């Protein structure tokens, strides 16, 4: 990467990428949220984007990592780690050394424990602020970034955060571009060795393919047989709400407005 040029200092962005798993076939691929993170980084104006991965380097993981290179990168930094290692020390060391302005990660990994803790631990370790569930980065100015956070039900919230910072992307972030075959082949993986820290706890846990969760039974706790019967035979009916007959349209509208205000759906 270039050192800061004399002109406008470029925004240095590091995207942490991991190896994904196709939900149906189980095949190794580029992780969906990480790819969204890369796409988000690409959309930033004059940003210097760097890809970073810590993990094993073998044939299948290389194929997945080349998926990110195919999004228009010539290189990807790879810190070699044995399988099942805790990558936190290696990553935080690498980030400390390069000190980017913005680190973008996915919300949780598609393989391994997938607890989604890594960004939080990194933020704690580096002492940087963290914002989760990002949909877009609106602007970056004077060491502050304006972000759009995705809320449930398609809503958005605008946040301002001081850089350097870590952000995680949501599924609402822009869909990643296709990985192009040529650049993916041509790009290089810059391998380096890093601090290795084994995850001993993980080795002691029992891990198995997920079983379907039992469906919750509708348990009716009623004192009498009649109540149990009524509950079992109940139709999906409200408890009988308020009915306003013979009101003027304005009175009716007022009643509706009061309810809408109580529920806080009006903006």
């Amino acid at each position, binding site marked *: 990467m270039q050192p800061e040029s004399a002109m406008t200092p470029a925004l240095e962005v590091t995207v942490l990428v991991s190896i994904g798993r196709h939900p149906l076939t*189980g095949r190794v691929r580029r992780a969906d949220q990480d790819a969204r993170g890369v796409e988000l980084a690409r959309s930033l104006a004059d940003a210097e984007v760097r890809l970073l991965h810590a993990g094993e380097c073998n044939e299948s993981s290389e194929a997945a990592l080349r998926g990110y290179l195919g999004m228009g990168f010539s290189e990807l930094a790879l810190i070699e780690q044995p399988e099942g290692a805790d990558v936190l020390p290696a990553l935080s060391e690498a980030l400390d050394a390069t000190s980017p302005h913005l680190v973008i990660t996915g919300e949780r990994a598609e393989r391994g*424990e997938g607890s989604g*803790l890594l960004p939080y631990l990194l933020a704690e370790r580096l002492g940087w602020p963290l914002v989760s569930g990002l949909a877009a980065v609106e602007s970056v100015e004077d060491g502050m970034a304006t972000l759009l956070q995705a809320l449930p039900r398609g809503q958005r919230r605008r946040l301002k955060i001081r850089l350097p910072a870590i952000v995680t992307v949501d599924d609402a972030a822009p869909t990643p571009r296709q990985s192009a075959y040529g650049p993916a082949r041509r790009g290089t993986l810059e391998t380096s060795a890093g601090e290795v820290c084994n995850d001993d706890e993980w080795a002691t846990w029992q891990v198995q393919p997920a079983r379907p969760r039992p469906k919750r039974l509708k348990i009716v706790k009623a*004192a009498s047989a009649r109540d149990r019967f009524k509950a079992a035979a109940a139709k999906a009916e409200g408890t009988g709400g308020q009915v*306003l*007959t013979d009101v003027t349209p304005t009175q*009716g509208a007022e009643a509706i407005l009061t*309810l809408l205000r109580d529920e806080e*759906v009006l903006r």
Partner: protein
Amino acid sequence: MSQLPRRDPRQEWIARNRLHPRHEEVLAALGQGATSEWPGPNGLVRKNPHRVGFIGPNGIKRIDRSGTQQGAGGGKASAPVAEHKPLTEIAEPAFLVAVVPDMAGGRLSGHDKDLLGLARRLADADPAAQGAVLAVVFGSHKETNLGEAGVDRLLHLDSPEIAGYAPEARLGALITVEQAWTPRHWLLPDSKLGGGELGRRLAARLGERPATGIWQVEADAESATGWQCTARGAAGSLDIRRPLPRIALALAECAEPVSETRHAAAELVLPQPLPSTLSRIQDLGQVSVDPASVALSEAEFILAAGNGVRDWDAYHRAASVLGATEGASRVAVDEGYMPRDRQVGATGTWVTARVYIAVGISGAIQHLQGIQPCEKVIAINMDPSCDMIKRADLAVIGDSTQILEALVTLVSQAREEKRDAA
């Protein structure tokens, strides 16, 4: 006066003797009303069949055999069951189980209730050393049933610095709780924002390795905490069995919600004020999104139109003024007034709106199926007997065009007043 119940044999005798001239009077004094059943002098239960039941709305005598009714009183339903639930008070808990519910929309969600159920299991496991469930609630709320959901202690934090999106200040508050009471367990909902995020921050700050995506917890004497949990990992494709750590982030339906007991929900106060944190994240508030761009299945507020809408322009205007996502019944779609992807119901979209306004929709079963998860349903309809009115929490009988017009006028008026005031 002594609290011992005092018996009056004469009164009891009159109460048993239904031929006594003062029989009714004495029954009323004993608070039994006109009973249809009473214990006879020999211990036999006596019944007066003429007193059973009540007169229904059409003048016909109806008998309710559920046993909740006594005598010929008007067909009053029994008192709500809630009052019969025993109140459990834990004066000196052996330990605390801290729960931080999401309280989306100011109420306990189903997820929160499941989590409180899990907290109760952890707290009540050992009858000799019972724990108490502490709920930490941020911001103002509308929930009145915290005690019934299983909360023994309530810490309600409602200061301006934790309002909105303030993860750093909220984390500071949780750390204060940790220092003050050191709960044995921390339980948070593993939801997208809120619990899932706060719990991970807490774990990172405390340096504890949490379990995330827990869906099952079982007692296990061998593990350090006495519990074993099963958690989902790797994007839901793995099950990880491991000892339950101190900080647990659980999925919905991780346990049955509390239903049989009532708890005190006594308010606690933090022994020290919240630490002032320098926030590096600033909340600039929610952004208005175009409601039409929100997927129908996840829209929060839907204005749905049916065959009873006459003026479609007025309807679209109302939707945009209210900021509601548009939905439709099948008839409105078939007639070509609304696009197919807006159809709500069995063959359309199942919606999860918090508020659903049905304008001129009769409430056919295929439509009602689609709105089952909706919290509040408002019906605007001409016909007071239709099924939608039965489902609705608020029904306004009248012409849809006029009511929508009045609603639009009111809302725009209110907005203008607000703008003038500002």
